[in-house]
């Protein structure tokens, strides 16, 4: 898995949306899902912003114009957060666990199996069973730590429900239907004469502006693929 990560080392993500999609893309490709069903499976823009305000994720590396640029460490941290959440750890604990960790340490955290114990005895038994007393592969929570104040299902259900409403909303016109442009004019064909259509596979077309020149940069191309993948995926989920 860590090897797979290596291919992403030099990628940049323009904006929170791209970062979310890249993380989702990666998690899907390795087939991770949350077991508990209490936390969203994949990070979205909102959760990323939330992690940033909570200090779990660093601010963007830089700003280009209005776009925030994120890098490999952001993606990696995000993947680790999701993994730890999947183990049922509350955000406050995750924050402590990842604080000050280097890239290598985060990679290790992401790549290894992690065991969570709420009882010191259980932990000792586990350690004895694997024959060492190293702390690095085990997380011990006090019982308060693992019991979030709110029943987790209730909390995340509310949030997920509201997020689903936002998704629904983006399918709908912003304004009242009367103000909606006639549906016959699809968004991409504005200024039709300047666009070329290519059928990639049946049912999927690519529209390219006549004057457009694709950069040779592999990084850039990878990003475009992630974006397309994100679009196709989000359509699937609706």
């Amino acid at each position, binding site marked *: 898995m860590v090897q797979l990560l290596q291919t992403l080392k030099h990628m940049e993500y323009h904006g929170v949306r791209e970062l979310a999609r890249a993380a989702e893309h990666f998690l899907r490709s390795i087939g991770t899902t949350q077991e508990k069903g209490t936390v969203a499976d994949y990070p979205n823009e909102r959760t990323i912003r939330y992690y940033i305000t909570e200090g779990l994720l660093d601010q963007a590396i830089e700003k280009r114009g209005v776009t925030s640029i994120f890098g490999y460490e952001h993606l990696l941290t995000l993947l680790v957060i999701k993994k730890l959440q999947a183990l049922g750890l509350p955000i406050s604990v995750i924050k402590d666990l990842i604080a000050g960790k280097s890239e290598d340490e985060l990679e290790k955290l992401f790549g290894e199996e992690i065991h969570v114990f709420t009882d010191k005895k259980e932990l000792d038994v586990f350690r004895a069973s694997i024959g060492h007393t190293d702390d690095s592969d085990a997380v011990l929570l006090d019982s308060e730590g693992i019991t979030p104040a709110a029943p987790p299902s209730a909390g995340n259900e509310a949030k997920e429900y509201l997020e689903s409403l936002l998704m629904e909303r983006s399918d709908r016109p912003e304004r*009242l239907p009367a103000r909606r442009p006639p549906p016959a004019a699809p968004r991409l064909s504005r200024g039709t004469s300047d666009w070329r259509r290519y059928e990639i596979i049946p049912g999927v077309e690519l529209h390219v502006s006549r004057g457009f020149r694709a950069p040779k940069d592999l990084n850039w191309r990878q990003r475009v693929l992630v974006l397309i993948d994100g679009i196709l995926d989000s359509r699937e989920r609706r």
Partner: protein
Amino acid sequence: MDNKETYLQIFMEKERVAANKEQTIDVLVRIVPPAESAESGERPKLNIGIALDRSGSMDGNKMRQAREAAKYCVDELLPTDAFSAVIFDGNVDVLFTNQPATNKEMLKRGIDRIEARGSTALHQGWVQAGLQVSERLSGGGIDRVLLITDGQANVGETRTDRIVQQAKDLAERGISTSTIGIGQGFNEDLLVPMAEAGQGNAWFVEEPRDMVRIFETELKGLVAQVGNTVTLGVTPSPGVKVEDLLNDFETDASGRYILPNLRAGSPLDVLVRLKIPAGEVGETLLAANFELRYTDQATQKPVTVTAMGEVAYDTAAAVAELRTNDQVLTTVTLLTNARARKEAMEYMDEGEFDDAASILRMVAFATDDAFDVTPSAELEQEIEAVRDLNRLIADRSNDMLTRKRMSYERDLRRKSR
């Protein structure tokens, strides 16, 4: 009323009923929560997300008062509470992400900078405020969105039934919604059902200067909340039928009535109309079983309280001598008047103002009669309110205000508030 636990009090219309005939009787189920919430000084944690309309029509006094009210809210919160605010016009901006109410001065300065502009994306404003609240659920406390608006939803989702359903769905997921309608341009047919479905309160601010007082009442209600997810099951004995429940509470999938949240020191009166079979003089009948269920605010544990409604049969002559129970009469009057308000509103909507006015006149007579039999402050207040409505509808000076008052008064009467 120094009880520590919630209990049920059952009042029969009369102490006994006439034998040998089938009849309908009114039974008042009074739900009496503790006089004070849990241990002294303890109150549920609050997690409040304000969704404040900053559309153009809010300009001036309304916005000024809304800002004051929001600041009041901040002042009242404890550092352990959480506060967030979104402001919406055609767009929605998060003014404060969910945060502990610690830096109050900073919060209040931010609120002071809100100014009015644009149209009303009410739905999205509500959704975003909900999202803020969902970021830091209180866990056993109260997570609530306060939607403040003076206008109609005209951007984004505008369908009333959809928004109301969504408020219900969100309440089921732990976040309740209260609505505050200001002035006369908002849609009470959205805001009142939305708050009911959202397990919160609907407030009507006729005058901007009432804003702070309304906020105060809302917060006091939150702090005093001792039970949520409240339902009442009514199980009639064989041969007995539930004819009506005058509060017009909705029922859930299992037929239990969905009640408003329980507040310390505020009893809730539910009026059940039962049809009972004929009985012999001297016989008694267990007419119905009442079962209250709710989630205790402090412990988050389910609580069940039950009581039986018992009927004793006597001769018609003896029953004729008996006085009607004062509490029952008062409650029946208030709830019947609530229904009459709804009916009058429906007439108004059809343009039948004379019919609406005649209903309100009848309401006035009935209330006067009830007061003559059992004078109380409650009924006196009702007489005043009904008199105002009669005056408003007679001179037709402000139909919007008349309708809004009726809508909100109906809501309050149904919930004994």
